[in-house]
């Protein structure tokens, strides 16, 4: 149960980290370590990753940390919202606790504050990072559905290029088996930041999570952001689900049920009934696939019902 030997490198800039990655075969970036390190001590058949020969620790790179709200003109960040506006830029090595307690996040993209507060426990939130969780794309991760529901964009850098990938294009299944969520990160590429458009004042959001009793991950999680007009009509709706299948996904049919309607119990139930559409459920010892399929419509119904009354939340 002790990890095999490995080399350990500690760059202090993004370019140095990318340079190191190009020089070392089988190297892996180390963020908060809460996915990689537990994985590395598992027996080989249970591991999600091959054992790295070199760890490149991103912990000393200041430019990978921090939260800033920026005004942008034109198409801001490659996301599908388009247009000019304000963005929140969160460095990939920003910890969950930093997000949880950031007043800037709470006032601009409150879905992230709410999600951060229910991730595992305070000890883990102090070390686990936003970027680490997204790059891991664990099928039960909390951040993947949150960036999907908040229309975020992943900022990626490699030695000779950079690109912006909308969250909806970032998560993939790699087909290697159940529970193997993956990403479109290319070899040698680093997730440096996440940009999130500032929520509309009419947007209400929630992250309803069923915590796995052993892992603290999401046994099931529903992230919802709905924008509601003064006449209570739903203008825009983004629903994302984690824990159910191989990777976090948008519930597009459920979203379509709501857009253009008011958030009535009937409309909400209609959306809930569509929640399972297209999902291949994957269970475990604490909840079979059939059980998760029972739970998901209930969770979506409860999340939306919470948002139908705007009094307590944005």
């Amino acid at each position, binding site marked *: 149960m002790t990890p095999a030997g490995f080399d350990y490198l500690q760059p202090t800039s993004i370019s140095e980290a990318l340079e190191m990655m190009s020089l070392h075969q089988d190297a892996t970036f180390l963020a908060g370590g809460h996915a990689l390190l*537990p994985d590395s001590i*598992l027996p080989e058949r*249970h591991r999600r990753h091959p054992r790295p020969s070199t760890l490149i620790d991103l912990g000393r790179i200041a430019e990978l940390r921090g939260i800033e709200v920026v005004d942008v003109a034109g198409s801001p960040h490659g996301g599908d919202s388009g247009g000019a506006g304000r963005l929140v830029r969160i460095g990939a090595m920003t910890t969950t606790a930093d997000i949880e307690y950031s007043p800037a996040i709470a006032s601009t993209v409150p879905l992230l504050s709410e999600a951060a507060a229910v991730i595992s*426990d305070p000890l883990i939130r102090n070390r686990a990072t936003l970027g680490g969780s997204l790059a891991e794309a664990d099928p039960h991760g909390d951040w993947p559905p949150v960036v999907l529901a908040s229309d975020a964009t992943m900022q990626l850098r490699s030695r000779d290029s950079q690109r912006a990938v909308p969250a909806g294009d970032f998560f993939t299944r790699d087909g290697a088996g159940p529970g193997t969520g993956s990403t479109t990160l290319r070899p040698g590429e680093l997730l440096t930041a996440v940009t999130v458009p500032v929520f509309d004042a009419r947007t209400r959001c929630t992250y309803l999570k069923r*915590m*796995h*009793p*052993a*892992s*603290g*991950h999401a046994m099931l999680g529903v992230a919802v952001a709905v924008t509601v007009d003064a006449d209570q009509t739903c203008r825009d709706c983004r629903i994302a689900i984690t824990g159910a299948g191989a990777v976090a996904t948008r519930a597009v049919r459920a979203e379509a049920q709501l857009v253009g309607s008011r958030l009535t119990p009937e409309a909400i139930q209609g959306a809930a009934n569509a929640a399972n559409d297209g999902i291949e459920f994957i269970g*475990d*010892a*604490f*909840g*079979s*696939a*059939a*059980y998760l*399929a*029972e*739970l998901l419509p*209930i969770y979506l119904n409860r999340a939306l019902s919470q948002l139908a009354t705007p009094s307590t939340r944005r």
Partner: protein
Amino acid sequence: MPAISKLRREQAELRGRGRYRGIGLATYTEFTGLGPGRLTAGVGFSFGGWEYARVLVHPTGRVSVHVGSADHGQGHATSYAQLAADALGLRPEDIDVVEGDTARVEFGLGTFNSRSMPLGGSAVHECSQKVLAKARRIAAHALGAAVEDVHYEAGVFAASKPTGGGPRDSVTWEEVARLAHFVPDPPPGLEPGLDERVFYDPKGLAFPFGTYIAVVDVDPATGDISVDRFLAVDDCGPLINPMLARGQVHGGIAQGLGQALLEGARYDDEGCLVSRDWTTYAFPRAQHIPHLETAHTVTPSPLTQLGIKGIGEAGAIATPPALVNAVLDALAPLGVTHLDMPLHPEQVLAAIRQATDSRPLGGAP
């Protein structure tokens, strides 16, 4: 502690509003303090039934208490020091408890069967009394008084009647400790030193008992169980340290709750263990533990020193049946009459579906 009738009224009201509230009771009695030797021999163990203590007074007056029942988190250093301090008329901070080191502690059977306080504690108490009896003889000699005329309280030995020409009328614990080692003319028949050992073999087992009440709500849509209230009343005899005793009860309840609701080894279809580490085996964490309301009745055992009965395992005994009974009570209106631990929500939901003869789990709505 609420009256059960009040809990039942609340339950009836909630049921009227479609909520599945349940109240579960469990009472227990256990035997603790395994010994005496003739009993352990009778059931086939060959290790005797005693527990060991050594009370060693240093020439400075500080006291080392060596105990053979090693602590694994119960707080022995505090409770044994309290017992010795009470028996010796000293403060707990005057006592050093030595344990868990076979180079320093000569003997010990161990901590199990909630026996540290009833047996180890009795050994410390009895051994402290032995030390004090010898100290009193040394004090009497120094005061020129008869032993029965020496009154001891809070670290001072005083002659209760004029000593008839004795050099003084009182002597402190520290002076007696020094005299015990360095006096030029020890009392006749008394060896120097203040160092006693006791192998305490009890007269019989102790029998703690108690009653636990769980109040739960079950979500009929998901099978989720939430514990609204959890009440524990234990009788472990006199409490040496109420806070440590409460800690023992809390820990036991957490273990019982883990057994009832969360834990269990699981294997996949190929026989591989899938509950293989702390991310796949659900032991209870702080977030799983409800607010616990604890209280005690005090019925001393006639068979141990001070009537102490032990509290280590109490919480783990009645918690599982109290919780399971509460869930069954909550689901009684639906006709659920049997559930097997651990009560994972999926199993609870499946039992609800089976009892109400509605669609099976995963079936079409």
